């Protein structure tokens, strides 16, 4: 700003020009023109026009940074599975379905060696399945550690849960398996080598059969060999009829020619053979001519001795998968387990390994549950009906006695009394226990086999019979388990000592007891196994006997084995008693003891279907 002069004629030149530079440097506003008129003397001066000067701000233009988003790259990995379009299962015939229903309804609290619940499967039609019926627990098949390829591992993981397979689609079951049984099936299914070592009574048989069935139905295997002790062959047959009714089975038996044909017969995917028979057909089995996709050994402790002939033969059978079922994988020492593993996976374990190494190595191959661990899933009492085939000697004696006895009864005609019938029944029942001529007893063979397992687990068992003579015949075979006796022939003053010894001596694993012995106060609740060597007429008496072991405060579920000789009077009696029990329970509460205690006169006479020319002999007889 310039000023001129002093008086009057001062002019003030004000020159201001503001340049506002935009981003391109152009003027955004015109120069200012200001008119000012003033004098420091107070005189009015002429208007002045200020001049505007330009002030340039030097500013660099802002930078532009493009932000680009790279597209997200996606890689995929995929697998196709060798899945059969459908299960290879034939629908069960109507007859089979009724057998299954009968099996389900006939067991109140259990089934043979299965420990399963009695509730029949609700095979609901499509669309009727409600959210409430969906199983809350889902058991998935887990790949074993030995499966390393991702595709193989995913194949197992992506299978439907076992609970969805059971009862839906093609696989139906007579009763719902327990949760631990689902786990066992899921354990076995993917494994090429496995030991199922559950405590007796938890259903090893059922779990093995179901896993086999699933493998067969899915086409993963085509033929199976099941090896078991001879007394258990009929048990396996029956279990297979219940749990896998659509699968044809063949029992290897008979003369050499027949056996050779049976071994080679492709029509039966499951073949059952006993250990003793393997010795006789050793040459054929080890020739390489026959191959099995799966060989399962029941009571696998039989091969714990690697040097035994049985062990050698079994190891020589050509196979892809090897399973072992045993309640006592280690009976005496870890060497026993090494012996079993020589069958499962030769060389995997060795005797030089210490205990810890063995446990670590074998961990993924063994599944063992004990009753106390699965207690919450188990009912307090588990019944298993052991239907046992008589030995050849027993069967011959039985048939002869029955035939002769019925003839004698018929000859009595009007003189026939119920006492006569009782006598015949008792005689036949005694033959079912022991052959009178040779002493042979298939029930005893079975009992000894079970006791081996019980004693090896450190458990105790009660064996009931209605005859003291039977108990005394049983005793010698059970000597390894240090049995004690408790019946009418034991003096009263010694009975307490017997009970004390049974309770306190860890080596005393079995007490032989008659139904009539004992008192209300007798308390044997530390026994977890009860064997009814022969059955009583009255279920109430049986229940009382059983309850000596199963009482409030029992440490665990009690397994009750009811032995009965198949296709004999024992089976007929059992059927009548069972139908009466069911009818009774349908009408009365469980707490009452009602009129359906034993057999009526009509039922007893009906056991032999006794008829005269006048018609059936009934209770009208004396």
């Amino acid at each position, binding site marked *: 700003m310039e000023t001129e002069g002093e008086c009057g004629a001062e002019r003030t030149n004000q020159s201001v020009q503001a340049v506002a530079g935009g981003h391109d440097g152009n003027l955004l506003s015109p120069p200012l023109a200001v008119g000012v008129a003033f004098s420091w003397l107070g005189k009015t001066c002429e208007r002045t026009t200020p001049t505007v000067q330009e002030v340039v701000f030097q500013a660099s233009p802002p930078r532009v940074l493009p932000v680009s988003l790279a597209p997200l790259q996606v890689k*995929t*990995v*995929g697998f196709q599975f*060798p*899945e059969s*379009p459908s299960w290879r299962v034939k629908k069960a015939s109507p007859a089979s379905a009724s057998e299954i229903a009968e099996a389900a309804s006939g067991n109140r609290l259990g089934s043979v060696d299965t420990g399963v619940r009695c509730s029949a499967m609700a095979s609901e039609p499509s669309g009727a*399945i*409600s959210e409430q019926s969906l199983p809350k627990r889902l058991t998935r098949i887990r790949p074993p550690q030995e499966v390393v390829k991702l595709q193989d591992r995913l194949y197992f993981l992506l*299978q439907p849960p076992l609970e*969805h397979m059971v009862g839906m689609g093609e696989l139906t079951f007579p009763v719902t398996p327990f949760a631990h049984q689902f786990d066992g099936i899921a354990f076995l299914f993917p494994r090429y080598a496995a030991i199922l070592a559950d405590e007796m009574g938890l259903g090893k048989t059922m779990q093995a059969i179901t896993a086999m069935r699933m493998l067969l139905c899915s086409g993963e295997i085509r033929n199976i060999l099941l090896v078991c002790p001879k007394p258990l062959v009929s048990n396996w047959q029956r279990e297979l009829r219940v749990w896998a009714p659509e699968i044809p089975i063949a029992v290897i038996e008979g003369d050499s020619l027949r056996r050779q044909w049976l071994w080679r017969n492709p029509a039966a995917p499951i073949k059952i053979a006993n250990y003793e028979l393997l010795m006789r057909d050793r040459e054929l089995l080890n020739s390489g001519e026959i191959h099995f996709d799966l060989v399962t050994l029941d009571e696998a402790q039989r091969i714990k001795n690697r040097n035994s002939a049985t062990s050698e033969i079994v190891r020589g059978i050509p196979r892809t998968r090897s399973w072992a079922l045993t309640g006592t994988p280690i009976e005496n020492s870890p060497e026993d387990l090494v012996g079993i593993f020589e069958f499962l996976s030769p060389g995997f374990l060795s005797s030089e390994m210490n205990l810890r190494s063995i446990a670590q190595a074998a961990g993924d191959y063994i599944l063992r549950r004990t009753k106390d661990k699965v207690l919450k899933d188990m009912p307090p009492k588990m019944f298993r009906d052991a239907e046992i085939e008589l030995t050849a000697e027993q069967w011959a004696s039985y048939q002869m006695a029955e035939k002769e006895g019925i003839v004698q009864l018929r000859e009595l005609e009007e003189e026939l009394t119920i006492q006569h019938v009782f006598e015949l029944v008792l005689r036949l029942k005694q033959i079912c226990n022991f052959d009178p001529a040779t002493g042979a007893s298939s029930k005893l063979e079975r009992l000894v086999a079970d006791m081996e397992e019980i004693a090896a687990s450190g458990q105790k068992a009660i064996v009931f019979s209605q005859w003291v003579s039977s108990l005394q015949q049983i005793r010698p075979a059970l000597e390894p388990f240090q049995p004690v006796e408790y019946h009418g022939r034991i003096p009263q003053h010694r009975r307490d000592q017997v009970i004390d010894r049974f309770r306190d001596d860890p080596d005393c694993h079995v007490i032989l007891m008659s139904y009539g012995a004992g008192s209300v106060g007798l308390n044997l609740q530390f026994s977890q196994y009860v064997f009814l060597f022969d059955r009583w007429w009255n279920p109430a008496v049986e229940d009382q006997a059983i309850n000596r072991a199963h009482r409030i405060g029992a440490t665990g579920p009690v397994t009750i084995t009811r032995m009965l000789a198949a296709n004999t009077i024992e089976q007929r009696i059992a059927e009548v008693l069972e139908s009466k029990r069911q009818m009774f329970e349908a009408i009365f509460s469980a707490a009452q003891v009602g009129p359906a205690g034993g057999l009526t006169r009509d039922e007893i006479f009906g056991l032999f279907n006794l008829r005269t020319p006048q018609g059936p002999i009934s209770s009208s007889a004396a």
Partner: protein
Amino acid sequence: MPQSHLAVPAVGFLTVAQSDSLGWTGGYLLLNSQGRPLEFHCTLPVRPSRAHEILYGRTFRSHLIQDVLAPPLLRQGKTPPLLLCTDLEELLGFEGAGIEIPVGQILDGSSLQATCDQACAVPLPSAGFLRVFPGREDQVRSIIDQFRDLVDWSEPLMRIREAIREAQSHAVLRAA
């Protein structure tokens, strides 16, 4: 060599698993009428950048599912499914976008009540509903009838997530 599944009726299940450490992984499972697996495909984990998240804003999730993860999975499948099931609402938009098969979102009863279009819900045999596009109800019902052995229609999605976990842990082990 796996046998051809072309003639086998199949249902597809597709879902996405997300974890902070690994990112987003898609899984696609094809089942036969017994609920047995025919094919399984999964993506390697995708880790979008922060820029993606910011710039896509509220459309980020649907972009990831619809545009990034699902298409390559569906292209990989060899067996053409009759129906595609998912728990992701975003995939309902697939219909009409080049996918000719019906797409259904699996909902339980309470979730269905929260949506507006209850008229397009087809009940499932076991529990829940399948939310489908209008006009697809009859077609979807007849497909569901063919798969009576599929007890629980939401259960295969659990299998997918488990399989994704297995695949990821397998990859970690191999890398180690």
